[in-house]
């Protein structure tokens, strides 16, 4: 009787094991297309293991456990950080490029050519009213283009700061959720409860964070993880999240980030990598360089032009006055550049003559003004050379970042495919396994039916 009862229990254990396995397989099939879902596996384990008594021992299940590849996940986090960095750099540097050149043929370079063209036309009739007004109109347009470009770059700056704040908020929210999930996973693991879905959820959040800043995931005990920056600073540690912030003290010159814990002061985060890193690199290098270049160009051009204009004499033989008004220093010169109203209203004040005796039709000072087109203005470069160098530098940054983003995207896709091939659900595989489990379930059911019949036969014999 004891043997039959054991057979009955073996059948019952097999039945339950196959039922659990089928439920897991069905769950895998149902979630085959769920983003971030990792297939779960139930292992059938012989009761008593290798050291149990020989003979019929029955089975039980272990799991379900999610399939994961720590190595590939680490590589994916790195790949996402690289992609985030280059894609953001490409996108925001393209914004700087648009600010400098709203459309083909509409930028400071074309305005300065139109300015010198009108000056050249005035050289055929320096005392002419129409030529004078035409030149003043171009001078006004040039000053306006300086201001417009400076305003566009300022708008880019504000947009980057807004984006940085949005990203920081999103990262902080994710870090907090990761820390919360980490505690829940640890608790579930301690109670031997399944934590696979919580881990999947945490992995998705870590992937989101890794796109925004470089992180290394360090696995701890009982399913917990710590998130560490490349500089070795912990973002999440022991189920506690730190807060990323913007170092407002260094704005608007530089964009840097800080890290603050519950019990410590804000510390510099260092180079964050990811989208935050791409944003900071564009803000601190590309944008800052071009704003500085624009101001230097505006200041040098207007100051030198004013000096030359003041050296000339107007139509009435009076000494020339400054043509442009601007700030006293290079900083902010582009946004403050204006054509002086007094001259704007009266072309007779244009000082094209080189000496009072040359007035009103002399043009020797006009030739000096015209020569400025080909003379070095900033760091040994002419206006056009300096402006084109800026445009080309930004264009190269955008192009290079775009290519790097494409390469990082391809590499990331490959890593994700490799990871999906290990942790993803193969419907064919699951269907075969389901069919196998169904047969196992039926076999276990037959064992139970047979043992029931045998038990009934024995009882009838005894009776």
């Amino acid at each position, binding site marked *: 009787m004891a043997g039959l009862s054991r057979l009955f229990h073996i059948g019952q254990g097999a039945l339950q094991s196959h039922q659990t396995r089928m439920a897991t397989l069905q769950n895998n099939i149902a979630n*085959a*297309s769920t983003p971030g879902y990792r*297939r779960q596996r139930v292992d059938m384990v012989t009761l008593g293991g290798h050291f149990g008594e020989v003979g019929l021992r029955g089975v039980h299940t272990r799991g379900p456990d999610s399939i994961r590849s720590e190595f590939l996940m680490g590589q994916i986090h790195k790949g996402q950080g690289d992609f985030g960095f280059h894609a953001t750099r490409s996108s925001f*540097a*393209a914004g700087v*490029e*648009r600010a400098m*050149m709203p459309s*083909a*043929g509409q930028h400071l*370079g*074309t305005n300065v*050519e*139109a300015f*010198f*063209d009108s000056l*050249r*036309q005035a*050289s*055929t*009739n*320096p*005392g*002419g009213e129409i030529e004078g007004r035409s030149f003043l109109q171009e001078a006004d347009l040039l000053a306006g283009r300086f201001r417009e470009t400076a305003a566009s770059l300022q708008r880019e700056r504000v947009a980057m700061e807004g984006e940085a704040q949005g990203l920081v908020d999103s990262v902080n929210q994710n870090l907090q959720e990761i820390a919360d999930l980490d505690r829940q996973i640890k608790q579930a693991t301690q109670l031997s409860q399944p934590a696979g879905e919580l881990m999947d959820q945490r992995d998705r959040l870590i992937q989101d964070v890794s796109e925004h800043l470089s992180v290394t995931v360090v696995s701890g005990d009982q399913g917990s993880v710590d998130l560490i920056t490349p500089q070795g600073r912990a973002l999440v540690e022991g189920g506690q999240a730190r807060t990323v912030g913007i170092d407002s003290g260094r704005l608007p010159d530089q964009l840097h980030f800080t890290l603050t814990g519950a019990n410590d002061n804000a510390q510099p985060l260092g180079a964050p990598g990811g989208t935050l890193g791409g944003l900071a690199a564009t803000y601190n290098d590309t944008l800052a360089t071009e704003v500085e270049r624009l101001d230097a160009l505006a200041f040098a051009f207007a100051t030198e032009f004013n000096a030359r204009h003041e050296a000339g004499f107007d139509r009435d033989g009076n000494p020339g006055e400054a043509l442009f008004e601007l700030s006293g220093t290079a900083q902010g010169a582009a946004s403050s550049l204006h054509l002086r109203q007094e001259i704007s209203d009266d072309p007779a004040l244009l000082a094209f*003559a080189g000496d009072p*005796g*040359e*007035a*009103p*039709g*002399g*043009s020797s000072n006009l*030739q000096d003004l*015209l020569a400025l087109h080909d003379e070095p203005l900033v760091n040994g470069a002419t206006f*056009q050379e300096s402006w*084109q160098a800026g*445009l*080309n530098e*930004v*264009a*190269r940054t*955008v*192009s290079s970042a*775009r290519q790097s983003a494409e390469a990082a995207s391809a590499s990331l*896709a490959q890593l*994700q*495919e*490799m990871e*999906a*091939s*290990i942790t*993803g*659900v*193969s*419907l*064919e*595989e699951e*269907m075969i396994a389901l069919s196998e489990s169904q047969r196992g379930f039926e076999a276990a059911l037959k064992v139970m039916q047979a043992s029931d019949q045998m038990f009934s036969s024995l009882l009838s014999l005894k009776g």
Partner: protein
Amino acid sequence: MRVTEQSHFASLVRRIQSHQGRLQEAVAEASTGVRVQRPSDDPLASAALQRLEVSAQRHQSYLRVQTTMQGQLETAESSLTSGVAVLGDALELALQMSSGAHTEESLQASAERVSLLKESLREIANTSHQGRYLFGGVADDQPPFDDAGGFQGSTTLRQVEIGEQQRISQLSGEDLFSVQGESLFAVLDELEGALAGGDQAGASATIDRLRGGVTSLTTGIQTVGNHLTTLEHARAFSEVIVLDAQRQSDRLEAADLADAASRIQMATTALQASAQAAQQVKGLKDLLFKL
């Protein structure tokens, strides 16, 4: 490598996205006809395009200056040709009246004729173009010769840049309308006075100076002719630069339409193939579920 649902899906999506990206790029090129829309599309080509644009703008500017200067020079040439004719008439009168017997009435009529010729020459010397007096030097806002023929313009001459390192200068009214330092108007005054006074010898004394005046104006015409030739060469050079810049810009900037059309065709076919592959995969999955 295991083939999973996610890898199937990811692979298909990536391929479709890649083909769509290529298709969009080719369609944008074909529809705008431009390959380099922004500097970042091709930084090297863009840098070259900017240099070409600056060069073309500069030479277009020179072309406009050349057009203005051509107008001024053609007007000056025409005026000086008329001046030569006027002086020629005066010279003919001086030659006629300085020899043989002439009545007092005849000499008086000739004196009046010289007076009219002097007035014509003064108008020629005060020729203006678009409101500016051509022979007044830098003082071109007022007539350079007064009613008596005295020069009140400027001897400072304006130079105009008509091309790179190429300048042409204004003509000096004082030099053109004088002979051996003496004003042509003074010579005509002397001729008029001699004829009015019946002084045939006095009239004869002006002949050489009048010839000198004709030579002076003729030299002026030659100078204008030289300027016009220089201008013509400068114009031809600027036109070549502008055309060459345009040609090079087109080569760097313009899309190859045949190539773009071919890429559109390829990307469309690849997209259709990817869609068919997705359909087939879906069919296989459906079959698997039925089984």
